[in-house]
């Protein structure tokens, strides 16, 4: 848990390098860790704007989503922010997974299914992992979402097949 002194030290690092994307990202992490998600949003967004590293910008955009999602009651913004992230790096799986989850939470099964299936067809699953938690559970997540959404779209045999594969290959217990 971040304490006041640690946060202050990080703020000093920021003040000495306010245009450094990594320092902005780290400052966002400190604020996120104590639930100050509005403050974290500011620093993650600065990171995304400042960096030339597409992957870091993508991760920072997902962090902005995660911060605001934690505040709840901003669903339209959440969905659009995930689409912005996905557009920025369309071969990364995290945004597809989170968008699929976002739709399935609202029982929008067609859209949830679309992102689960499209993500599995498009994404590069050999790409290196992100450095922080953005709510991505791992590569099995998209298949899980496909199984879940197929169940509600009249494809129960296919859904059962996927659940079995998840159980056997990934040891996912639903």
């Amino acid at each position: 848990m971040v304490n006041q002194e640690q946060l202050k030290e990080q703020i000093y690092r920021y003040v000495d390098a306010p245009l450094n994307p990594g320092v902005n990202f780290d400052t966002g992490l400190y604020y996120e860790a104590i639930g100050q998600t509005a403050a974290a949003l500011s620093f993650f967004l600065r990171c995304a704007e400042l960096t030339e590293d597409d992957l870091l910008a993508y991760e920072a955009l997902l962090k902005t989503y995660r911060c605001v999602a934690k505040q709840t009651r901003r669903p339209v913004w959440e969905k659009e922010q995930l689409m912005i992230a996905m557009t920025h790096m369309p071969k990364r799986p995290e945004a597809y997974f989170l968008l699929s989850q976002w739709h399935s939470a609202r029982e929008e099964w067609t859209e949830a299914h679309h992102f689960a299936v499209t993500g599995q067809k498009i994404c590069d699953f050999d790409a290196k992992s992100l450095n922080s938690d953005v709510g991505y559970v791992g590569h099995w997540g998209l298949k899980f979402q496909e199984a879940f959404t197929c169940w509600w779209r009249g494809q129960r045999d296919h859904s059962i097949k996927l659940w079995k594969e998840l159980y056997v290959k990934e040891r996912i217990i639903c």
Partner: protein
Amino acid sequence: MILDNISQIAIHNGGSLTPLIIPSELTGGTGLCNVSVYLDENGDLLANIRHVHYSLYHSEFNQKFYCKWGALAYLNPEDDLTLTTGNYLCKLDRETHEILEFKNVDTSKHDIKPIWSFVGLEDARVFRWEGKLYICGVRRDVYDNGQGRMELCEVDWTKDAIIEKTRERIHHKSQNYLEKNWMPVVDMPYHFLKWTNPLEIVKVNLKDKGKEKVQEGVLNTVSCETVITKDNYVKLPWDLRGGSQVIKIDGLYTCITHEVDFFHHEGNYKDAFYYHRFVMWDEDWNLVKVSKQFQYMGTRIEFTCGLALDGDDLLITFGYQDNAAFILKWPKHLLDRLEWEDLEKLK
């Protein structure tokens, strides 16, 4: 060249910068900002922190990542389109500036149903006049057109609660649609610096009380009148708007103002940059010094509501992008590190 990060100067020259945090379990994580600071007569260091029920999204620099609503957007709950403000009054540690104690200001005694989208007392400054502790800011929620008036609120800080004891809406015979950011003159009870350039100071007449019927209730009002004006206009790029309280520093009345470069990008997307200045007057309110513009932490939206003097240090409180709150200890001698306008050239 604008001095865009005066906090860096402070932390390397005997000053400090301290984040002010109210636990997210109470705030939901949304913005803490626009803090006011006041050194009370008994030595307590007080702060009022504005809590907004939104997060500000501001895409800076190359602006690659507009959100759905553009480069600058208030992320309020989508099922509640109001921009709602609450206030936390705090006691700070005079050494570390960390929060020792805080309470949400209970406004229920005077609240009426809000009928405009900006709800609550915004950008409240904290100060004590004639023994009474006040917060004073702008309220815009009592008319359906967003008319704003300064409201002077006496608060009662008890062991268990902080209660808004009185609320008085200030009326001036010459008032605009939106009157806000009046700066209380700490050692001149009931005086506000209403306008900086040129100077206009008003005095509230607490004896001239009235009532104002509005759609959802009846407001308590007091009048004020202009008591000091000066023909001291200087040419600056933008209006100087109110910020901190006005305090005395080495015999000079001193405040920090803000100015806004508000503009629209292509596609009618709004955006704004904020700048600040120290402004100083002599005992007779003749303009003496105006600093050049500065920013606190290298970001484009910051807002100051507080200035206090504790020994040889200025304490400056501000909000960062409406999302985070800070108190800056600025050793007084560092005023020499600022750049100052040549007022003769600006007349």
